[in-house]
């Protein structure tokens, strides 16, 4: 398990790679929190694209970062959640925190961009995300024979 962290001003993206369980959650938590605190981050993206497994330790990790960003008056976004990860997060009710499935590109845009111009692009991004979901081989084996 590892995490790649990029910081640009108050934006931070943490790309998680590998398996998230109790054994490695603390290391991830420390690395992310350290980046958030030293970089004075207010917008944190956790990217799950390269996460191959997650149990409820991952839920703890997300809830803890959600609390941290709330305390700092910032926001947390979870991106590239699919298949098994989505199932585990949904059953923990993380979708009710309304922080799931935000497109990564949103963070890259200049913050001052008018909201009206954003809308169509955002819809396109949402569509593309659905396509990406379909590419992931979860649930394919078996049902379609």
């Amino acid at each position, binding site marked *: 398990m590892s995490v790649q962290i990029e910081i640009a001003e108050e934006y931070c993206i943490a790309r998680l790679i590998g398996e998230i369980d*109790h054994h490695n*959650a603390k290391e991830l938590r420390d690395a992310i929190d350290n980046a958030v605190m030293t970089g004075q981050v207010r917008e944190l993206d956790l990217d799950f694209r390269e996460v191959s497994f997650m*149990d*409820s*330790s991952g839920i*703890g990790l997300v809830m803890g970062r959600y609390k941290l960003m709330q305390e700092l008056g910032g926001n947390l976004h979870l991106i590239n959640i699919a*298949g*098994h990860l989505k199932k*585990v997060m949904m059953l*923990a009710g993380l979708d009710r925190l309304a922080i799931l499935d935000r497109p990564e590109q949103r963070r890259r845009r200049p913050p001052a961009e008018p909201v009206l111009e954003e809308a169509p692009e955002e819809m396109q991004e949402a569509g593309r995300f659905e396509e990406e979901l379909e590419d992931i081989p979860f649930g394919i084996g078996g049902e379609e024979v």
Partner: protein
Amino acid sequence: MKPVNTMKLQFEGRSVNESFSRTAVAAFVAQLDPTVEELADIKTAVSEAVTNCIVHGYRDRLGIVYISASLYPDRRIQIKVRDKGCGIPDIQRAMEPMYTSVPEEERAGLGFAVMQSLMDRVKVISKEGKGTTVTLERSIRCKGE
């Protein structure tokens, strides 16, 4: 019903073995040719049960975790995860979602909730000072059903 195949596994309750144990159980279950999703469900439930042994059962010492698994002719798998640790004084409470006896570890308190929603059946037997056995059951669908 007599099992068609069984296995036993025992290992030291070190957190690095969480990954080892769920992968070993998944490899054993693989002979039923489960879907990727079924396998992910089983790995997750085993990971929760083993983490409970390490974090709660053996909270202040290193102990041995015991796993046994049986495959039945009706494509049912039964997995027992056992520790000889401190035991659970109040099982009902321990199984409540969001309850955790170690809030400082940033655990979500969702271990049992995750096991219950991913498995067909979860049974917990515990005796204070003697240990805890969690029995997980799940039917693997026949491909093409």
